[in-house]
């Protein structure tokens, strides 16, 4: 190669070196800058993913957000009718007033339609009034005959169709103190396909009755939240006049006393909870307490190892104790024991006659509500599973 060509080769190499250096990064900053330049070519909007959009929509539903509008409803149409589903509509108005309608159907085709109008709160929330309307069509409601000695095999069932117009006035004169007055107009229709018990043993069934119910209750509730709590107590006394206005002999008075006490231990790691419930009725002279309004035991919140409305009579007593522990802030476990009795006369209520059951349960809950209660209980009629959406007491 001649000198000119050698010179050209050297210049080319130097030029290539410079050019290549410009391409291959010569500094750390250049390296990062190149990555940033690459990303700049493929930018997109920052925003929610599809999954986030779905969650947002779910959370905005009135059921979860507490806002206005249509919402799905899950609950119980009537005790013993199984899980119910439905739809509701809520409209919130000024001063805590609202209008709410729901309709639902249960696993055994029982149906309910109910509406509530809560008037604006008065006196800074001390006084509240509401008006309610409800139509219920409950199927296959159990009746085993009156008394604690009734047979499980002697099950009668009836369709229960009450229509209720009611109004409540609630006064909260002091912190924790609640005074409630209620008036309800309730035509009731019941029907049996194949009666097991005759009319004398099943008062009120297969008849059209019309009740005017007046109720007064006083309560002292110092639980942090009625829907779920780990401490505090609830004491209630209620007096009720049930007047049958169509001339049938089913007018009666009812008294009910309830005490719930929760004792937290080790900063609420454990809770000892107890409940006592006493319901007494006095039928007018020559009258009787109709089956469908008689006090009963047997359900997910009374004698839990027994079927719904397993025992019914004019009077009842129930005592429940629970030992609860808290594996999570959203899950409580409990072992429990229930004991109770129904009786035609008050003097017949005595502890040695009590039916007893025991069991274990898990409750999934939020800070102020119970979402799901699963319980397995055992009594003299065997094991029973309970699925419920509320606290047992």
């Amino acid at each position, binding site marked *: *190669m001649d000198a000119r*060509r050698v010179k*050209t*080769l050297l210049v*080319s*190499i130097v030029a*290539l*070196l410079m050019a*290549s*250096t410009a391409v*291959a*990064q*010569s*500094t*750390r*900053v*250049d*390296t*990062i*800058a190149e*990555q*940033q*330049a690459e*990303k*700049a070519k493929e*930018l*997109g*909007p*920052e*925003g*929610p993913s599809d*999954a*986030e959009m779905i*969650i*947002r929509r779910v*959370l905005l539903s009135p059921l979860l957000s*507490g*806002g*206005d509008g249509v919402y799905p409803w899950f609950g119980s149409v009537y005790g013993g009718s199984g899980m119910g589903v439905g739809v509701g509509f809520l409209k*919130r*108005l*000024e001063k*805590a007033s*609202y209008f709410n309608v729901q309709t639902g159907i249960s696993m055994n085709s029982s149906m309910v339609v109910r509406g509530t109008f809560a008037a604006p709160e008065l006196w800074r929330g001390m006084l509240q009034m509401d008006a309610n309307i409800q139509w219920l069509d409950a199927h296959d409601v159990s009746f085993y005959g009156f008394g604690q000695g009734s047979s499980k095999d002697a099950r009668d069932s009836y369709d229960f169709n009450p229509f209720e117009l009611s109004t409540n006035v609630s006064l909260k004169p002091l912190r924790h103190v609640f005074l409630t007055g209620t008036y309800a107009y309730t035509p009731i229709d019941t029907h049996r396909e194949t009666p097991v018990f005759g009319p004398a043993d099943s008062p009120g069934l297969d008849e059209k009755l019309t009740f005017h119910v007046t109720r007064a209750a006083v309560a002292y509730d110092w639980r942090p939240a009625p829907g779920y709590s780990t401490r505090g107590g609830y004491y209630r006394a209620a007096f009720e006049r049930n007047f049958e206005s169509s001339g049938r002999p089913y007018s009666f008075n009812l008294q009910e006393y309830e005490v719930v006490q929760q004792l937290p231990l*080790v*900063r*609420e*790691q*454990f809770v000892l909870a107890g409940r006592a419930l006493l319901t007494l009725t006095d039928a007018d002279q020559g009258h009787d307490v109709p089956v469908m309004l008689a006090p009963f035991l047997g359900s997910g919140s009374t004698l839990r190892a027994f079927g719904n409305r397993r025992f019914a009579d004019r009077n009842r007593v129930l005592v429940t104790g629970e030992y609860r*522990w*808290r*594996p*999570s*802030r*959203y*899950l409580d*476990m409990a072992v429990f024991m229930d004991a109770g009795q129904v009786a035609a006369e008050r003097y017949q209520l005595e502890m040695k006659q009590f039916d007893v059951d025991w069991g274990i349960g*898990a409750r999934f809950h939020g800070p102020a509500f119970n979402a799901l209660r699963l319980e397995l209980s055992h009594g003299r009629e065997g094991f029973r599973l309970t699925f419920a959406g509320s606290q047992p007491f």
Partner: protein
Amino acid sequence: MNFRRALLVAFAITVCSLSLGAQTRRFFPDDPIWREPITQNVKNAVRYEPDLAYQTIENLFWRPGDKVVGQRAKNVNTVDEVPDGPYFVNRAGRMRLTPAIVARAANTSNGPAPGKWTIVSAKSDGITPGFTIRDSANQLWFIKFDPPGWRAMATGSEIVAAKLFWAAGYHTAEYHIAQLVPSNLAIGKDTRITPPGEMARPMNQSDIMWLLGRADRDPDGSYRVILSKAAPGRPVGRIKFHGTRADDPNDVVPHEHRRELRGYFVFAAWLNHVDAKGINSLSTLVTENGRSFIRHYLLDFGSALGSAAIGPREGWEGYEALVEEPSEIGKRALSLGFDIPVWRTQDYFESPAIGRLPRDHSKWHPEEWWPHITNAAFRHMRPDDTFWAATKIAEIDDEMIRAAVAEGKFGDKSSEEFLAKAISDRRLRILQTFLPKVNPIVDPELDPNGHLSFRNAAVDEAVADRAAGYRALWYTFDNATNRATLVATTEETQSPMVMPLMPASEYIQVDISAVGGPESWTRPVSAYFRRNAEGWTLVGFERQP
């Protein structure tokens, strides 16, 4: 060889050698960088407010982010430090902090300009009220209150945490404690409010009184408030702890691999900032020196220390996540409750001024601390990340902590003293836990005379015993090929160590480990030095997790 062929061969050799060099070269001339490059303008960033419930569910069940855990942080410079950038600025350990500097922190003014505060918007959906106001100088401020009966708890805790997070290096807002007199509030002509269960409507005076009714009120009718100055720039969202922002070209390191976001866990644990989640941050689009970029701030420290913002801290907060681990729930369920978590039985200090904190922190386990919701960055955290954070905390001494606590103006001397001591005690537990967990050698230097000096951060902080000695493996290092060649091994009882006779090399690598110390100290740190006119410059440092 003819000329054309020679030219081609020269071209090929040049390109190949440069490509090879670019691919394998470990250190560039500008290493280590101390400022994260911002080379692109952010043009189309739009505001995106992530949903808190979704974030909670996402982190509980889907665990977003890189599935491969255990990777080294990817945004550290070559000496294992975090460059100044959109999330973090080196302060502790990099600049000389004093109590006065910590007390001032991000503040650049004395608070709102004198005159009426005009309400721009109000927070009506939460349990505690809040306002956004403009002062007479048209500056935007956010106002928050203490819950009734807990004067100074939320506002004071927020100030203290903000000062200390700033000292650690995070971007925080400017905060002031002030007294609000209701008559000093004016309602903006376009200000609207959406009371619970109502439609949005113009705000009126009764709305102010309704909102103030949920705040702690002083006997003279005024309210103690905390004001935070609106961060500069246009809000574009919140910090996310995994992936990168799709609209930010400068954001190229997945956030779960950013050391300052991993290390955020340690600072949050220190200050019991259980609400350390994306929603309590703010990303703003700022323009500085002609460049538009996104900067990220930590905000809302009302649920830190002994405060839960709406009341005192609950016992579980800091000990458990919002939803506990399923295995833990199962264990407790089977134990009939007799597997009792420590937070249910320990003793607490409680006062209206600072809320509720465990009385004794001497046995606190920072590694077992839980925020309400964890995140991808926390899940990817490694011991070298926690060590990094602990070295920052080590630079914030008790005097600075007391200065930050004094800014909280709690008005209760014994509570203030307890709080300062609690923060100091937790600081010590962090140092005791995270400094000895890796080989704690820091600040290696090689002087022109061949003396290699370094510090042992754990020994310096008196949280570990001195090692019997140190071993150094000396290598020549070829930066072009990223290859090291062992030359000699030396041992000394302490720093400095003497460099053995080394062959001529632009770079040398020294692997330093402790002899006779904890097992983790036997894993060497690697220091890389580049020869320059004056001697040797540290260009690389790597610590094994």
